């Protein structure tokens, strides 16, 4: 049997502070993404007296999704499905073109870990100070620093879990209820669960989440190819590496700057590896060193594997555009854009008045005492507007058919309340002498229209006669 342990403790990582263009880009992205996440629920949007005034709201209780001027009903969930497909294809597109940019810049795990490391550095100091603290005894100072850090993390985690629930109910009301301890238990449980995951994943698990819990590092291998631009070490330029006084032939002075700043704790000079989230901080760190020793930047850089032969031969790399515009990326973009255009089209042609007709086929028809034949239809009428409206129900057909509404005393108009679906039983009758009564099936179309506005909707259905 092996004498090695089956399970290994987590290797602590103490990323050093770094500055540079990619670090700045990451700061900007962090501010934007966190800002969007925390502030979105507080944006107001006036939709009239009967509808919520929150710009982005997933209203589970009423089964509505509000996004600015767009309101999605449950039967229109294909919009959400379409967006998810677009998000998936977008991920494929960006990965095949630019590697794991999602992981490195915008993944919540990366963004919140970055924020937590910022807090850590602010309280405990940079890499060396944190290393000393980690190795030092648990004295009063260590306790004070650790507790301060954990407490700050916890506040951020509570804010993160707290912001999530605001997307699902009116934010100001919920905040008031949360503070006065009158909110629904589910709200507190959700906040507690998300606080715990934020605190643990951002504070302690960090790279473990990416390496062991996330499926994406394993999928990405299929998404990348030699033309993918990704973070890599120009090994042909850097080796033989060695300290400056050793006078080795390569540009790499083995200063370990790239390793010290890496939030994943890896050495990019070992080549592409599953752990690398391509956050590009090693590029910033190395460029800084190259500037100091008077060598050109880009020893670690965004490059494609296919550039290696040309660069080794001392020729310039292929232009970036040529690497990005490939059949693969063009195909992804085409599918992505097609779905996007289809969704936009569906969004703009949809009406705020709708009907769905389900013909009652148990029985297929009803014989009336005078010999007339009646078909029954369950019609769902949707008023998606913010005010009550009067709908008129009618039918069109090549044959003579009469329409009647259950419980409306011969009226064909009815009030559908704001933002509501109602179920109306509709009878269509053919008199004994009408051809529809004795034929097999007759085509007809049921219409609903707003009597005060020129909008209508219809659905085709069939009428069953006696001859079946």
């Amino acid at each position, binding site marked *: 049997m092996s004498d*090695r342990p*089956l*399970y290994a403790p987590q290797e602590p990582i103490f990323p050093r502070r770094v500055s540079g263009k990619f670090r700045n880009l990451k700061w900007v992205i962090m501010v934007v993404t966190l800002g969007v996440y925390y502030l979105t629920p507080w944006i107001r949007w006036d939709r009239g007296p009967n509808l919520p005034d929150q710009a982005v709201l997933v209203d589970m209780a009423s089964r509505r999704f509000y996004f600015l001027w767009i309101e999605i009903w449950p039967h229109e969930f294909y919009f959400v499905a379409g967006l998810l497909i677009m998000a998936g294809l977008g991920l494929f597109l960006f990965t095949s073109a630019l590697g794991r940019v999602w992981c490195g810049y915008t993944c919540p795990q990366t963004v919140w870990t970055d924020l937590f490391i910022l807090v850590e550095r602010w309280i405990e100091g940079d890499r060396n100070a944190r290393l000393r603290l980690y190795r030092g005894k648990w004295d009063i100072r260590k306790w004070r620093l650790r507790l301060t850090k954990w407490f700050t993390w916890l506040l951020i985690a509570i804010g993160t879990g707290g912001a999530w629930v605001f997307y699902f109910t009116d934010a100001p009301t919920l905040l008031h209820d949360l503070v006065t301890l009158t909110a629904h238990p589910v709200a507190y449980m959700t906040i507690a669960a998300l606080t715990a995951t934020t605190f643990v994943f951002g504070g302690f698990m960090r790279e473990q989440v990416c390496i062991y819990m996330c499926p994406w590092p394993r999928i990405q291998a299929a998404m990348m190819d030699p033309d993918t631009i990704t973070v890599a070490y120009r090994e042909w330029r850097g080796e033989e590496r060695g300290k400056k006084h050793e006078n080795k032939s390569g540009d790499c002075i083995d200063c370990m700057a790239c390793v010290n700043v890496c939030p994943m704790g890896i050495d990019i000079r070992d080549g592409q590896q599953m752990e690398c989230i391509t956050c590009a901080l090693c590029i910033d760190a190395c460029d800084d060193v190259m500037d100091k020793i008077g060598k050109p930047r880009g020893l670690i850089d965004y490059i494609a594997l296919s550039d290696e032969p040309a660069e080794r031969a001392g020729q310039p790399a292929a232009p970036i555009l040529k690497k990005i515009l490939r059949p693969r990326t063009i195909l992804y973009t085409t599918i992505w854009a097609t779905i996007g255009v289809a969704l936009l089209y569906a969004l703009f042609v949809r009406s705020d008045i709708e009907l769905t007709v389900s013909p009652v086929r*148990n029985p297929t028809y009803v014989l*009336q005492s005078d010999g007339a034949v*009646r078909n029954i239809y369950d019609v769902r009428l949707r008023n998606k507007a913010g005010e009550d409206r009067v709908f008129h129900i009618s039918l069109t057909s090549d044959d003579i058919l009469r329409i009647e509404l*259950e419980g*409306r005393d011969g009226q064909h108009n009815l*009030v559908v309340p704001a933002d509501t679906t109602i179920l109306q039983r509709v009878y269509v009758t053919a008199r004994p002498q009408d051809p529809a009564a004795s034929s097999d099936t007759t085509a007809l179309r049921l219409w609903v229209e707003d009597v005060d506005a020129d909008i209508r909707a219809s659905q085709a259905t069939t009428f069953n006669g006696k001859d079946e």
Partner: protein
Amino acid sequence: MSERKVDEETGVETTGHSWDGIEELNNPLPRWWLWTLYACIVWAIAYTIAYPAWPMISGATQGMLGFSTRGQVAADIVEHEAKNEALVAELVAADLTTLPPSSDLHRYAVARGGSVFRAQCSQCHGSGAAGAVGYPNLLDNDWLWGGDIESISATITHGVRNETDLDARYSEMPAYGDLFEEEEIGAVVEYVASLSSSDFDADLAQAGSELFLDNCAACHGDEGLGDKFLGAPNLVDAIWLYGGDRDTLTETVTNARFGVMPAWGQRLSDVDVRAVSVYVHALGGGE
């Protein structure tokens, strides 16, 4: 055990398994993973103690929390009834003849009545209420005992031709096989057929019409329009409960028909009888 193999490239021990020369590295799992596994084991043991889990010879261990899915259903029903208490009270007190069809109470009655109907009535009348031979279709506009809400409610409450309820609907047609000669039955059948069809033997029907006026018109009316007070069917319309062909009519006149229905007032709560009445009334034939 085979000796340990170490991968030259990485210096990591391999599991010794080889596929086409590719060997699997035996990297250790992270320790938190081990603790997560232990936590799951502890959770699983605690769970089987707290909740019903282990199968025994009869039944299973009950669990310390006393949880059961049956109990959960019972609790759900209690909660549901508490929620509907106000609507139920309102429905019991409501005047069904003036209940507006667009009201919430009407919607509730139709929904509740629909589930009562599917549980109690659909066996004879069909899940779509279209009936069957001998069981009236409740979707059409032909009613034996009346199609207004009060008549429907009375029929459901007291039932048809049963002895447990003194107010039950009770119609009694004699079996004319004991009273008429065969030719007389044929004549009456021909007359009845002539009421709703143009294809008949005029002489025979003429003979039958006299027999009809003397024997049948007392209940079915001089013109065969029936009488909802007596439960006598309309013989002029297009709807036949048992069938309008001559063989079926002969059978009906000879032996008479005696359909039955339970008195639901004895079996269902007041609110359920009211709900199912509203439901049947709103199926399409309500008057």
